[in-house]
């Protein structure tokens, strides 16, 4: 393990602020997968997600001196990711509605039929899961990702998304229910194999 890998995020930030800007690459390496995953939850395609994620890291770099260490660096970074992705969505005028309406149900049907074509090759629980998450509203997908993979508490998620922890709790519960619904729709007969 290299010297940089042993350092905490805060140590690396102090080094960057002291003038050793090359150290920032270690911070990027540590958080890029998660930031990219969050970005993909919004953008729904890799190219846009990569653009959002890069933008986040540049914004974080510019504002590194303003990072107050009252919260985790990751929480601060996810706040930037959320706001960047939201403005990206606004710019692109993407449809951020959930798939509860009629139009989206049609999308779902298409999705399922596309999926069935590749079923033999991609028969994996994670493929089903990612598809179900993709069908959720971006905010629901982000809350689920932050909670299960971001090692973030409800308070920290609330901080990142500018919500109270109670709101996050309610939204997480609803998002999980919606996810379950989407999974059941997708899996149909495959559920038995999954469990």
């Amino acid at each position, binding site marked *: 393990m290299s010297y940089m890998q042993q350092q905490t995020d805060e140590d690396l930030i102090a080094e*960057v602020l002291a003038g050793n800007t090359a150290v920032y690459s270690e911070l990027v390496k540590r958080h890029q997968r998660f930031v990219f995953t969050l970005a993909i939850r919004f953008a729904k395609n890799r190219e846009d997600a990569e653009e959002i994620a*890069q933008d986040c890291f540049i914004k974080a770099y510019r504002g590194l*001196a303003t990072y107050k260490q009252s919260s985790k660096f990751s929480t601060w970074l996810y706040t930037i990711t959320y706001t960047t992705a939201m403005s990206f969505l606004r710019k692109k005028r993407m449809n951020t509605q959930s798939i509860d309406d009629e139009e989206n149900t049609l999308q779902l049907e298409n999705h399922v039929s596309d999926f069935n074509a590749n079923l033999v090759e991609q028969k994996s629980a*994670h493929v089903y899961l990612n598809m179900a998450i993709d069908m959720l509203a971006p905010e629901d997908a982000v809350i689920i990702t932050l909670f*299960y993979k971001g090692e973030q508490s409800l308070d920290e998620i609330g901080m990142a998304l500018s919500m109270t922890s109670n709101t996050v709790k309610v939204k997480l519960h609803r998002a999980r229910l919606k996810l*379950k619904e989407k999974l059941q729709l997708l899996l149909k007969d495959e559920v038995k194999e999954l469990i």
Partner: protein
Amino acid sequence: MKLTDEAIDELLKSMELEEPSMSFTRNVMEQAKLEMPPVTLRTKVDKRIIYSIAAVFLCAITTTVGYLFTNSHLEYSISNAQLNFSFAMEKSTYSLLLKALLFADLIIALFYFDKFLRRNLNSYR
């Protein structure tokens, strides 16, 4: 067949993160090079300065209290215990200075009390 909540929880916990392109870090660092290097906005305060200011205040308070006692007529008798601080503040040339000093002390005390309360309230939230 119904999915159980536990199965969904397990599935979500084992979910894998997406991987950006191989050149992602390099692209970010190339862009970062074009930016102004971030510098800390908070200047580090030398602790010696803080200790010096504290020493000045302590000295001023001690001097004032000492002056107050040396210029008072302290009377004491066993039969009728009486402490008489007949120090005329208004006559003292130091009265204005004393008031200013006490006022500054009060402001500092209130400032730290406020900071203390804010920190404690934030930790409870």
